[in-house]
Structures are given as C-alpha cells and as structure tokens.
C-alpha cells in the first residue's frame, strides 16, 4: 500500500526541501521504493540537495502537459537505487500545474512506488494548494522561532480547511543549549501551541550544511545528530515506536551559573 506525503511549512527557509531529501533517502535506505516530487516550480532545489542537478532531462511540467510519460522524467539516484526524483521546471511558475493534474499524476505514481513525497513551495497560494491536493498525510516542518510557528499554525488551519486530517509535525533546527537556557522554545512548547502529532525534533547541525554542499543528505552520516533525528523520523513513518532523542544536557552548576548571570 503506497502513501503520499506532502512536506509543507508556510514559511520559507525552515527546511522543507532538506527534510524531503532526507526522508526520501532514509526510506530508500530501508529498501522502499520512493519518488520525490518537486512542486516548487521556478525555485527548484531538491535536485541540488540530492546531487542530481546535472541529470535532469524532462520535468513535472512536461509530464502534466502530456509531452512525456512520467517515467521518462524520473531521475534515478545512483547510490540509492530505489530513490527517484521527479524534478520540476526552473523556468515556469507555480501556475503551470493545477491540483487536478498533480492528483492524477499521484494516482499513477501510487501504482509504482511505496512512498510519494511531495516537496511543497512556501506560501499558501496556488503552489501550496496544488502540492497538498493528493496527499494522504501532511508533514508540517517548523522551527523554534515565533514567525515559523505562527506560519505553521496558519498552514495547519489551511490543511484542515482542505480536509487533510492526518497532519504531523517536525520541529527543525533546534539548538538544545538555547532551549536548556530557556532562550528557545522547546518541542514541547511548540507542541502545546500547535496541538499536532509531533514526529520528530531535529537539532541544528553543521553537518546539514556541509552535506548539502556535497549533495548528500545528512541522514547517510552516522555521526550526524540531525541525521540520527531523521533516521528516527523515518522509523516512525514506517510505524516503529521510537522515543524522541534527548540532547546532551548542561549540568546543574552550569545551569545555576546561567541563572545567576555568571
């Protein structure tokens, strides 16, 4: 049985594409057959994050306009052979695909893949409405930042209005030491505000930057904390019961020092 996920956030720059790439690679590492669909037409980046930017021949636009069958537009990942990317166009804009076209395409993709992951553009306009059209599950990515949480709340409201009831939350780029000091909202704080099932907290990790530079998602790096967080999320998506990771904590004396402003 295949599942269609949309990865969305409202606000830009919170890590939708990074999350899509990591979850895609993670599911493929478990032997699942996965296709990643980039719907961020005009601002595509999923190809870059996966290191597939030089292998694009056809795009989502060619497929929905009927110029090529979707199989011709798919780019297969060399390392993870069950992972495919359906890239979008960098020259067209969001109006090039409508919700019905994407829904129809997803019905076809369901037949061939275990997981269809749709990378949604930022915003709540047509691009968003198209991206969520065919999804069974919406994964909302947010950050422990006031604007990102507010936008996530807006997106959750929009998803509910579109009758998407299976909504899950990922809190990205947490800085555990700041949370510890009380200077950053924790996953629990955000959970309390948004009341959506949280499936993971991803720490801010320099390896995300360096691995992105190389076009290899950090989920493949054993020592990466963010990679570990993504591996846990993949496990949870596969139905495993994995406890949330705890971050190394500051000791009592360090806390007291902070409290006393020393």
């Amino acid at each position, binding site marked *: 049985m295949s599942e269609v996920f949309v990865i969305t956030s409202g606000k830009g720059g919170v890590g939708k594409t990074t999350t899509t790439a990591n979850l895609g690679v993670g599911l493929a590492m478990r032997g699942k057959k996965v296709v990643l669909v980039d719907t961020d037409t005009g601002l595509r980046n999923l190809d870059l994050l996966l290191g597939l930017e030089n292998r694009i021949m056809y795009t989502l636009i060619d497929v929905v306009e009927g110029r090529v069958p979707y199989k011709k537009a798919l780019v297969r990942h060399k390392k993870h052979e069950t992972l495919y990317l359906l890239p979008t166009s960098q020259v067209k804009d969001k109006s090039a695909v409508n919700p019905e076209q994407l829904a129809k395409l997803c019905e076809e993709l369901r037949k061939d893949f275990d997981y269809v992951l749709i990378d949604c553009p930022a915003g709540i306009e047509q691009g968003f409405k198209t991206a969520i059209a065919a999804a069974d599950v919406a994964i909302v990515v947010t950050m422990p930042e006031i604007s990102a949480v507010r936008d996530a709340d807006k997106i959750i409201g929009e998803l509910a209005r579109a009758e998407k009831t299976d909504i899950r939350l990922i809190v990205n780029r947490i800085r555990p030491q700041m949370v510890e000091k009380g200077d950053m909202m924790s996953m629990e704080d955000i959970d309390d*505000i948004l009341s959506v099932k949280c499936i993971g907290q991803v720490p801010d990790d320099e390896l995300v930057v360096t691995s992105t530079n190389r076009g290899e998602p950090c989920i493949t790096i054993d020592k990466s904390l963010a990679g570990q967080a993504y591996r846990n999320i993949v496990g949870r998506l596969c139905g495993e019961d994995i406890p949330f990771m705890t971050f190394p904590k500051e000791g009592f004396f360090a806390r007291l020092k902070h409290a006393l402003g020393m």
Partner: protein
Amino acid sequence: MLEALLKLFGKKEPSGKVAHNRLKVVLIHDRANVSPEMMENLRNDIIEVISKYMDINKKEMKISLADDDDSVALVANIPVSNMRHEKRKDDEPASKN
C-alpha cells in the same frame, strides 16, 4: 524556585517563554479571525455601555483576547476615573453630628 531566584537577581523572563506567550496570544487572534476593526467596534460599544454608569478613562482602556488555560477569555482593563453619583441616595451630604 528557579523563577523566584531569577526574580531575586532581577533577571528577565527567559526569551523562549516570552515567545511562547506572545505566540499564544497572536494565534488566538489569527485563529478567531478577529479583525482590528471588529475589536475597535467592540471597544466603542463597551465604552458606550459603561459610560452610562461611570466615567471611564477611554485612553487607558484596554481590551484583548487572552489565553485562559483551555479557553479564550476577553480581558478588559477599564480604569474608572469617576463614579457617577448624582443619582445615588447615600452620596447626599451626611448630616453633621
């Protein structure tokens, strides 16, 4: 305990907590879809009603929606500058003893 200590040393509330509280309030407004215009109308109507009974300081008056555990509360802070007393019996000058 920690909070008391922080207060003792004149420390500000941790910014994470501030963000959390600000978000709670702003989301009440976002979710309720309450326009500033509606709040202004509500404010004016409240002033009109209360002014029948007492003089209030309109400039200092504040009304807002707030988070009250699991429900939303309409909180109004209305400074009273003067009670209207002309119609009240017991406000008549007391007889000298």
